């Protein structure tokens, strides 16, 4: 129960009057040397967690800005919906499936399915706390936000044509089962971590996984009507680049929590200094991804392409996510810059393959994610190219195949696409009966 300030001040006063009382406590309770690290790391998870939660808004704004105005309400609905379902599924199944502790069903490969997350009791005593780590509640809160990011990647790629419910059902499976299982291989202490795979904050485990799931969906779903007509690409410009830019800045901000929090410790000089290094590297990689795309689009197309610059910044972030700590700032510079380059060249490539990725999430999260996972070897001597590739392939095969199966089942069971007329008139009016910008005449 919330103590009220008055009583607290009274307490404070008494404490001053009766210092002995204070001493008594000090004897009883462990001092900061024991509990300080626990408190700081828990705080790291809480702050990191709300920053990553904020990324959900970033994805929503980015995607709402990159779809056409007739599909904005639907895109927003999908993003709010996926985040909410992810939160429930990760509690119901995901968290313990991903971090089985010693509850593995198949050791190192599959954790327990029916193990709901429960937190510490209220007012936990220091004696009962994992003083070398952090509170379960903060850990759960932090990890939960990662799975939501994975799902957001899918919504962007499949925008403007997929029905709401099949999409949400896929999200339920992805966030409850697929992501946690593959995640457990590494972060749950499974076979890949044994094998020495290295993916600090999830270039592969989070971003590529989202990319693979989305790629499978894009293939089954097919491109938007008219996107690839008579052998030509017909761009469908995003309706609101201010929103798209806002979304990118939100993601950029959230990424400090994403990578910084993944240090998983903040209570020692070494840890907090490492977190600082991660913040600096993360920012550098994002900046260089943006600059690379800025310069490259100018050179290649003769005009700077803002949407590519935004994708470039995000690709820079994804690229550094597998190893934001070890590289020098110069390392972050070129690793991030290559992420930006990847975007500029792979976005048109996907179009050539007639894979319709509405927001460029496959180049940003999948391709740059692979790059970042490989780039680990340049600064992290513990990592070997072989294990890195093993991990990349393992996550790719598992997620892509499993997703493909689910997409096919969903297609058969209920159909994935809205009707042609619904797609042409826009999902907002056709599916939701609600325009995002009803007051403005569309040109």
């Amino acid at each position, binding site marked *: 129960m919330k103590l009220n300030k008055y009583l607290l001040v009274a307490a404070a006063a008494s404490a001053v009057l009766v210092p002995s009382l204070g001493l008594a406590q000090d004897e009883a309770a462990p001092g900061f040397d024991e509990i300080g690290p626990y408190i700081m790391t828990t705080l790291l998870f809480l702050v990191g967690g709300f920053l990553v939660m904020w990324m959900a808004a970033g994805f929503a704004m980015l995607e709402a800005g990159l779809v056409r105005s007739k599909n904005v309400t639907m895109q927003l609905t999908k993003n709010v919906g996926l985040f909410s379902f992810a939160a429930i599924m990760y509690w119901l199944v995901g968290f313990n499936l991903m971090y089985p502790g010693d509850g593995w069903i198949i050791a190192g490969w599959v954790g327990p399915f029916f193990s709901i997350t429960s937190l510490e009791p209220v007012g936990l005593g220091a004696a009962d706390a994992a003083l070398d780590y952090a509170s379960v509640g903060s850990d759960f809160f932090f990890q939960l936000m990662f799975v939501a990011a994975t799902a957001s990647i899918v919504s962007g790629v499949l925008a403007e044509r997929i029905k709401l419910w099949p999409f949400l059902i896929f999200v339920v499976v992805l966030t409850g089962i697929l992501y946690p299982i593959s995640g457990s291989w590494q972060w749950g202490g499974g076979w890949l971590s044994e094998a020495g795979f290295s993916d600090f904050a999830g270039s592969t485990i989070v971003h590529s996984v989202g990319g693979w799931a989305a790629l499978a969906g894009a293939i089954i779903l097919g491109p938007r009507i008219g996107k690839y007509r008579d052998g030509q690409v*017909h761009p469908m410009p995003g309706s609101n680049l201010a929103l798209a830019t806002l979304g990118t800045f939100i993601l950029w901000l959230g990424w400090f929590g994403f990578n910084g929090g993944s240090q998983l410790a903040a209570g020692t000089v070494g840890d907090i200094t490492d977190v600082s290094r991660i913040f600096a590297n993360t920012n550098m990689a994002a900046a260089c991804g943006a600059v690379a795309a800025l310069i490259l689009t100018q050179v290649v197309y003769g005009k700077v392409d803002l949407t590519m610059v935004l994708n470039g910044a995000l690709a820079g972030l994804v690229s550094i996510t597998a190893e934001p700590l070890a590289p020098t700032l110069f390392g972050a510079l070129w690793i991030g810059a290559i992420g930006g380059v990847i975007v500029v060249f792979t976005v048109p490539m996907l179009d050539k393959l007639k894979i319709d990725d509405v927001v460029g999430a496959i180049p940003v999260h999948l391709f740059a994610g692979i790059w970042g996972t490989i780039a680990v070897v340049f600064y992290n001597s513990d990592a070997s190219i072989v294990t890195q590739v093993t991990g990349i392939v393992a996550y790719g095969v598992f997620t892509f195949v499993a997703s493909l199966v689910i997409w096919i089942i969903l297609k058969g069971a209920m159909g994935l696409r809205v009707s042609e007329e619904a797609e042409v008139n826009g999902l907002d009016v056709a599916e939701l009966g609600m325009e995002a910008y009803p007051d403005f005449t569309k040109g």
Partner: protein
Amino acid sequence: MQVKLIIAAIKPFKLEEVREALTGIGVRGMMVTEIKGFGSQSGHTEIYRGAEYAVNFVPKVKLEIVVAGSMADEVVRTIAATAKTDKIGDGKIFVLDVESAMRVRTGETDADAL
């Protein structure tokens, strides 16, 4: 007495200039609409996320002006003179017959309504 409707499609950035010129010769009202114009100017290509595409419609402004028949020619000439940049896409001017005109507020009709 005769009344005409003059429809003109011009370049948006010429709107203010044309409006001033028309007020200058005594035009007291008009209707302005944002339109997408298709014509010889259309068809240049743009690049979006690495894909080239043809821009078929260019933004234009449509003016609809109802004036006494006697003024019609002068109005047409004024618009033509002011909207002209000698670059492709300057626009078109059309004149139509109006059977009757009325001012809602007063009920005045035809030329008095303008």
